[in-house]
């Protein structure tokens, strides 16, 4: 493997660094990709492309303070770009079966299931904000940097997302705090 990486222009120490970083971080990236896409295959494809681009830019980004933040930004960019939309459309066209992942039976919870379905139905940018804020636990400023938008946009998108979710879940009596605003 290191031979392949050296053939692609990467020094041996850099190749080892990338492999080590990827081994440690790919699972987190995959999970975030899954929450963004809601689809196993699309998530794997998205994470794979993001990792490939981190690899291609490794010499430049490995010297930066946070490779993780760079990788997350690439992942988000890939997901929200027009290119990604095309790719996902192709996935839908070529395979219409569901690639959603069932939650383990012992974990099944009607509340989270309903909420997950509602999150999956959010518009792309709102869903990205929700994932960054409530899964990645980023601050508004960190989320703004990841999405390359202002903090105000994060606030407005987050507010809209919660309103949308309230509208879709407000009729459920088992979800306290999700009552739709009048």
């Amino acid at each position, binding site marked *: 493997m290191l031979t392949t990486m050296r053939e692609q222009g990467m020094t041996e120490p850099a190749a080892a660094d990338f492999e080590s970083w990827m081994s440690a971080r790919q699972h987190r990236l*995959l999970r975030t990709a899954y929450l963004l896409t809601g689809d196993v295959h699309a998530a794997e494809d998205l*994470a794979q492309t993001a990792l490939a681009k981190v690899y291609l830019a490794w010499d430049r980004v490995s010297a930066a303070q946070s490779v993780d933040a760079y990788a997350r930004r690439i992942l988000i960019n890939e997901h929200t*770009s027009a290119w990604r939309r*095309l790719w996902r459309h*192709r996935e839908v066209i070529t395979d219409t079966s569901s690639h959603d992942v069932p*939650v383990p039976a012992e974990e099944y919870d009607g509340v*989270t299931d309903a909420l997950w379905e509602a*999150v999956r139905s959010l518009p*792309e940018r709102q869903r990205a904000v929700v994932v960054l804020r*409530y899964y990645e636990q980023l601050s508004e400023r960190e989320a703004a940097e990841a999405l390359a938008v202002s903090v105000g946009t994060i606030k407005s998108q987050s507010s809209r997302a919660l309103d949308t979710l309230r509208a879709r879940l407000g009729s459920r009596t088992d979800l306290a705090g999700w009552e739709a605003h009048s």
Partner: protein
Amino acid sequence: MTPAPSSPQNDLTRTLNRHAEGFAELGGSSLDLDQVLARAGEIRRGRRLRASLVMAAVVVAVAVPIGITNLVGGNNATDPAAPATHGPTLPDRPSPTTTKARSSSNPLLSRIPLGAKPDHSYVELGVMHDVDGTTQQLPAGATDRLSGITPYLGGYLVAGAETDTVTLYDGSGKVVKSGSGPGFFVTTSDGVETAYVMDGRLYSNPGSGMASGDGAVGPISPNARLIGYLQGGVLYATGQHDADGTPQLALSGGSIGRDLDGFTSVNATDDSDDLVAGISDPAGTGRGVGRVVSLRTHQTVWSSPDWDPVSFSYDGKYVAATALDTDDTTQVAILDAATGQVVATTNLGAKGFDTTDTAFDDSDNLLVIAQQRGDGKEAILRLSRNGTLDRATAVVGGLQTDYQTPLIIPAGPQ
């Protein structure tokens, strides 16, 4: 451990964690380094192949290559589906001929009546189409996710979103210089001045003609976002924010007063050195409203809970806007810049399209890049002030064009 109390935020965190873990335990497979390297190779090979052919093509460059620019030219009303192609065609992307053939089966965009070509040059599938009907392949480095292109010093500036690089080419296609920078160029509506950022410096110089020098203005944050020309300088967001999240704005060679206070984002300036458009959040609710302010009167000209004003027409009388209440910006409108009243609008989402960008063709017509949901085919549509919608270019692209550039990139304020 005591579970977190129920609240929307905690419910979201709990739900997302559960489904992420479910993915990891049941469905999420580990990625193989081989697969990642193979994908990297695909990306790299795509760049190289295009690069080698493109550089040969640039030698036979014609005129000044531009995206949707503000260089108004003659209107060639011939069928844009059959452009005169003088540049070579890349083997790994469809040629204009092949895209024309594929587009014949397009069921949606093709139903929109084909009108005249844009009054501006444009880019589709990595090929620049000049207003005189000639075409030119884009240069190396501009073939993956091109984010900006504009005439500059007799050549052109190209920004690549994939690499966060900005490259200046001369008229023959030779690289003059290249460096890191965001893909934001701003240009005055007459095309005389263009500003860009490279390697932490702001440059501003005549976009056309052969002026000497490169107009270096001074250092600028690498995170800066250029907004537009204003009062002889360049208005930009510094990339820093105040404690309340308000973006910090700066004006090269000058200072801005309090008129822009309250904007959560600023999108555009007009050419009269008067109007600035963006989003405000006056109630602090997190819900933005579109807003246009006048620097002359120090007043808000209008605000709207419905529209996000994104760019001014060349005469400053109209504003292109996208809907605030939809996330995917598929509802597009031409607004009266003085009142905010809707002059014309179209809901592309309802027609089955996404849109990636808009640019005024002239003050009567707004160009909109439409991407067909389902197969990804694209075309440039034209929304006129009288409300009509027609198609300005052939229907091209689609799923076969992954790793290619978007259809078209405006060069003006974005």
